[in-house]
């Protein structure tokens, strides 16, 4: 374990902006993508139900 | 009021058409990106050289991106007969034309202005130069749309060809290019960009007043 404290961990030896900028965007997009796909699935199901009601 | 509503109607219709194509909104932008990507591939990756030619090259890319969108500005409407119907509208044709030109700028011009900083960073331009570049594009791209519309209308009846439009329009674009790219370059050279930007704005005012009118005249001729 090389991190003495949490703040040191977030500082990343001065590279915090770059490291967390990378990991953050990566995490954000990889959370957003499945959510978007799930939304798409819901819309598809709704469209099918609508066409059945007609 | 009436005039405004017809203007909005033409603008709205063209934006709706673009939205239908989904990707279309982004493609002017992609073209801009790709042309600027080709540049280092063509002339080599030396950062100093690239930084030097970046403002000019980005302006030329913006100009070509606008140009590519132009050919379809009226051609599609002409082919399917909607242009005929627009010419027969009780509203003045020039108002409808102004709406179409605005839509063209929103789709082909504005995105370039917004993307310019990213490309500027790739070419390692200083931050304040990027600001000037954005400003010059913001004034310059509507000018490109306005001038381009005249060319697009003129070549409509003339067994219109993509290349003919370019031939007519590019010479008209020369002053815009010179003042636009000049603004950035003279800023980098420490001479200040204000002069160039004022001239560019003056051209924009002039074009906004006359281009829709000239375009309308050209359209009526090609319809006959």
């Amino acid at each position, binding site marked *: 374990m090389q991190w003495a404290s949490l703040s040191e961990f977030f500082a990343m030896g001065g590279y915090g902006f770059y490291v967390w900028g990378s990991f953050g965007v990566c995490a954000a997009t990889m959370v957003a993508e499945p959510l978007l796909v799930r939304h798409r699935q819901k819309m598809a199901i709704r469209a099918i139900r609508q066409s059945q009601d007609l | 009021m009436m005039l405004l509503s017809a203007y909005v109607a033409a603008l709205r219709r063209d934006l709706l058409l673009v939205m239908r194509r989904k990707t279309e909104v982004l493609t002017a932008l992609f073209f801009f990106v790709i042309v600027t990507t080709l540049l280092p591939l063509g002339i080599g990756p030396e950062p100093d050289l690239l930084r030097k030619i970046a403002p000019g090259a980005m302006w030329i890319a913006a100009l070509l991106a606008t140009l590519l969108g132009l050919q379809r500005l009226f051609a599609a409407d002409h082919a399917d007969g909607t242009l005929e*119907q627009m010419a027969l509208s*009780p509203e003045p044709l020039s108002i409808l034309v102004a709406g179409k030109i605005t839509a063209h700028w929103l789709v082909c011009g504005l995105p370039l202005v917004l993307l310019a900083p990213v490309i500027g960073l790739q070419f390692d331009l200083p931050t304040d130069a990027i600001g000037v570049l954005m400003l010059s594009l913001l004034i310059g791209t509507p000018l490109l749309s306005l001038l381009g519309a005249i060319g697009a209308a003129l070549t409509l009846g003339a067994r219109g060809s993509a290349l003919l439009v370019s031939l007519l329009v590019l010479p008209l674009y020369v002053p815009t290019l010179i003042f636009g790219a000049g603004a950035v370059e003279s800023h980098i050279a420490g001479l200040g960009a204000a002069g160039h930007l004022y001239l560019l704005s003056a051209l924009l005012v002039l074009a906004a007043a006359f281009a829709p009118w000239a375009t309308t005249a050209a359209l009526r001729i090609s319809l006959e």
Partner: protein
Amino acid sequence: MTAATQTPMLAARNLSCVRGTQTLFTDLSLQLDAGQWLYLQGENGAGKTSLLRILAGLALPAAGSVHWQAQPISNQRSEYHADMLYLGHHASLKEDLTLTENLRSLIAMDGLKVSDAAIQDALTRMGLAKRQHLPARVLSAGQKRRGLLVRLLLRPAKLWLLDEPFNALDANAIVDLQECLKAHLKDGGMIVLTSHQTPDLGSDTAGFVLSLSRGRA
């Protein structure tokens, strides 16, 4: 063609039309009053479309002039266009938009406002209710044509200039359209139309036939 009124609504005086080396017609005059219709007849290439475009103000005649309510149409473009509706050979539909969107934008560009319910209603009358949300691109030839004709129901105009309106329509649609034309005439409208199928607008309407044949009118 009627002697009753001194100033007919629509009058064309001594029109002539030259295309290339060819004179399609010369010295052609006509006039039309409320409730009357004119059927332009003639073989392929006789000049029917050319005449209609001149009447609409889309093309200029080589000689002569067109008058609307005693004024040359070139002096009152906006007023004339508000009173006139021209439907040509073209579909005039944006392929990417649905019929509803197409109609809405065409009407808005004319500076008019029509409620969505009215559009919906007109589409239903033309038998397009089920097709209204499809992009025009996928419609069949006849459906596109019907979509265009919906404008007749939606946009108020005294004078209708129709170039081969029956083209591509099936038998039912032709009957419907003829009813629609008759109703327009009853309301005091005017119609100029071309067609290769003789239109049947009933015997109680005042119709004229103008035969164009090469070089004579």
